């Protein structure tokens, strides 16, 4: 009797089971379909909410300028600490050095003026060597040694500049970010280092500034007394002697050009690189440059680091145009931190300037 009942029930169920399965399929299809449509329509919102929540990501995360509380520049200010030092003399404290401090100097994490007398407005380091052109190399050695002894922990990178140099600190930090301060390396505008054993060697222009890593500073401070490697007398061009000394001590001379091989450091003003034909090929820069020196409208980096021969008034012109001036209709750009370069992957291109 039960079997009969069951059979009946089963028979009764089969047609409706088929109907129910199609109905269920249709329902499922509708549900999945609407889910997909919602997902498609609100993909962007999901992305926004996902990136707004701080994830445990590494330092090389995507653009935080708009969505984070700290700008990228502020973040780099914390992470890539720069100590600047400027050679000066009491005669030019108020005439030149003060303007450096008021324009770009205050953007360094720390800045010191190497001179022979203290000053009420400037953070100075009083050196023992006299302020004479002939002992510039001696002053440089003393300055770096002093910095290594007293301030090595205060910064990761140490830049030397003149009082007629203008440095863009944010772009310097951007340039140095991929490198580690424990790599023995230094950057600047590369000149050819000419000498018998020193093939394919370069030294950096002193006028446009050069920046040493903490490790390079340590190696220099500990090794510059070696007379086989570094000039012991105080005279001679400080940038040339620095280059020779660092080369002999095994510090790498890095390539400071940007991703499109455009110069970031430049030992004269911008227009001499931007206006081809302003000088002829007999211009000294074309002969001494380590890398092929081309002048063109697009030959300087968008993120320049420094220029030389900037007069006092021009310091304020640079400051105004690059830090205060507003261009209408400028669209905000998304900027990303570059990838870190491992020391073993570091490749420094060889000299390719054939101008003599």
């Amino acid at each position, binding site marked *: 009797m039960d079997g009969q*009942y069951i059979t009946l*029930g089963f028979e009764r*169920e089969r047609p*409706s*089971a088929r*109907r*129910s399965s199609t*109905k*269920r399929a249709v*329902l499922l299809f*509708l549900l999945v379909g*609407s889910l997909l*449509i*919602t997902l498609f*329509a609100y993909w*962007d*919102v999901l*992305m*926004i909410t996902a990136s707004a929540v701080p994830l445990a990501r590494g330092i090389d995360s995507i*653009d935080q*300028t*708009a*969505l984070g509380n700290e*700008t990228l*520049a502020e973040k*780099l200010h914390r992470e890539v600490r720069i100590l600047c030092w400027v050679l000066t003399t009491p005669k030019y404290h108020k005439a030149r050095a003060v303007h450096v401090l008021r324009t770009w100097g205050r953007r360094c994490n720390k800045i010191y003026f190497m001179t022979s007398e203290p000053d009420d407005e400037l953070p100075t380091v009083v050196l023992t060597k006299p302020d004479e052109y002939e002992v510039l190399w001696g002053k440089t050695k003393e300055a770096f040694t002093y910095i290594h002894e007293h301030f090595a922990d205060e910064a990761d990178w140490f830049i030397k500049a003149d009082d007629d140099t203008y440095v*863009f600190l*944010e*772009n310097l*930090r*951007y340039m140095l970010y991929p490198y580690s301060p424990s790599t023995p390396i230094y950057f600047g505008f590369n000149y050819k280092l000419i000498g018998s054993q020193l093939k394919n060697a370069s030294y950096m222009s002193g006028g446009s500034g050069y920046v040493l890593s903490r490790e390079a500073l340590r190696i220099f401070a500990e090794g510059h007394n070696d007379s086989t490697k570094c000039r012991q007398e105080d005279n001679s061009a400080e940038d040339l002697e620095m280059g020779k000394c660092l080369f002999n001590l095994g510090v790498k001379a890095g390539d400071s050009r940007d991703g499109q091989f455009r110069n970031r450091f430049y030992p004269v*003003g*911008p*227009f001499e690189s*931007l*206006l081809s034909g302003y000088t002829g090929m007999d211009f000294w820069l074309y002969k001494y440059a380590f890398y092929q020196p081309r002048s063109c*409208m697009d030959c*300087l980096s*968008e993120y320049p680091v420094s220029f030389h021969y900037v*007069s*006092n*008034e*021009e*310091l*304020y*012109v*640079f*400051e*105004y*145009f*690059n830090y*205060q*001036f*507003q*261009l*209408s*209709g400028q669209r*905000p*750009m998304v*900027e990303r931190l570059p990838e870190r370069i491992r020391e073993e992957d570091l490749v420094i291109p060889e000299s390719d300037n054939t101008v003599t």
Partner: protein
Amino acid sequence: MPRLFSSQHRCLGGRNRFTLCRAISLLLLGTLCFFTVLQVHRNLQTEEVAVSAAPPPRIFCIITTFAYLHKYAAMHIHRTWAPHCDHYLFVSDDVDHYLEPAVFMNLHDKWQRMRAHLEYVYKYHFHEADWFLYANDNNFVVVENLRYMLKSYSPDELIYFGCKLRTPNGLVFMHGGSGIVLSAAALKRFTLDAMTNESICSSKDKGDEATEELGRCLTNVNVIPGNSRDEWQRHRFLPFDPALHLGGRMNESIEVHKYFLDHSYYPVTDMNLPVSLRFICSLTSTPSIIYNYYYFTYKVRRFGVPLNFESGEIQRKIVAQKYMK
């Protein structure tokens, strides 16, 4: 008889299957409709913002030069800021491959040249722009900031801008060394009413007083000399090189400085003029320095620093909208 099958089956195979099924379908339909309406509403919202923005004012740049300065000075204008104007025209006394100037020969007086230039531009190029900038080959001009300033004015207004000066008699005119910007209506009024009438506007040689005469003519036909300073009374049209205004001061013993100091319409404090953050035009001391200013204005960036005039809030909204699209 006991029910041997679950109510779920029952709902699909039983009596109430239509009701529940219908309910679910209606619910899904309702959700889809809601989302569609939301999307359409959002699209409408963004469209509203786009429509309310008026088209930017069109600017026609007239750049005066001479044959001996083509290669030395005018060429650099041609390569840097002139293309930022909606249209530009070089006016010179001889031809050139690159500049393709409109040539006006045998005009040895600045006022005669100015009359000829403005009349020519009215005849041939009036329809091309709303505002007309009359500049020299030693000016550096940021055209985008000029558009920004002119956004709040109409080209039908009788108004003109520049670095404002005044004579001791009270005549207001613009400094010839920095640019002069005329509205379309002002140019039309000048060409049709002023230039044709000797009593309103002289046609004689004026020597160094060319822009003074322009000021007189325009005042006689009711064209207002506008205020080109920004909301903080800082100057957008500068009479000298930016290096002087930003890093130095004017000196009475220098003739051109003394002329400016004696004729400036606005008070000069501390022998200098405050420079607006949205500066428009200045003189340049050497032609090649224009490349520096152009490079700083349009190419140089500071890494990681958001643009000044947009606060963090607005910046976030802009980036969020970018993602929304």
